[in-house]
């Protein structure tokens, strides 16, 4: 079965979606991620969607679910790299992804995570 790889970088789980997302793949990712968060005690999940040309309401819901589930498991989620056309379409569709942190790219996402987690090398801004 197809799977989206989940990489572990210190206490961050990095997911880069490089394939056309279909429903089953999104559901599998949701399951895999929650298990990996618990298994690795990750504190943050970074999802790179820069390769996604389309995000529909199902995929938007999956991203929201992943963020909510991660939060319950004590991890924060950042979605990075959304294409401008995807952002325009999502909002017009009526989905503004409330509760999901976003950043321009993986670098900015990692900086944001460090702040959220209040690392000693970065000043915490209390989210």
């Amino acid at each position: 079965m197809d799977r989206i790889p989940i990489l572990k970088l210190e206490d961050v789980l990095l997911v880069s979606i490089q394939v056309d997302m279909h429903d089953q793949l999104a559901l599998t990712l949701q399951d895999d991620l929650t298990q990996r968060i618990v298994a690795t005690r990750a504190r943050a999940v970074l999802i790179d969607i820069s390769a996604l040309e389309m995000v529909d309401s199902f995929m938007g819901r999956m991203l929201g679910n992943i963020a909510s589930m991660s939060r319950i498991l004590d991890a924060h989620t950042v979605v990075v790299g959304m294409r401008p056309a995807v952002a325009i379409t999502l909002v017009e569709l009526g989905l503004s992804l409330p509760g999901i942190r976003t950043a321009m790219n993986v670098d900015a996402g990692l900086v944001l995570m460090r702040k959220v987690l209040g690392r000693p090398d970065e000043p915490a801004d209390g989210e």
Partner: protein
Amino acid sequence: MECGFSLVEQTKIVTAASELARNTVIYGGGGEMRVERVQEGPKRTGLRLTFEDHGPGIADIELALRDGFTTGNGLGLGLNGARKLSHQFDIWSKPGAGTRVTITRWK
């Protein structure tokens, strides 16, 4: 099929198509999609997509078009979302006979 849509327009069309295709599969039990290039007058061209199924149909179309309404387990944004992403939206449905949704986006 070349229509000269911008990237944002293409993204909107593809997203609307994804929403409607999912409805056709999940609620209609599968069906078919037709794509056609349409012309209105000498200058106006567009793309028209038709999704048709022979599923249970929609009892209350007005209700089904309301954001947040769903009989499944989705967000209830698909049908109205597809309408918002299109310039023209037509829906025909008859309980027991099926559903046909047509969307058009003009260039």
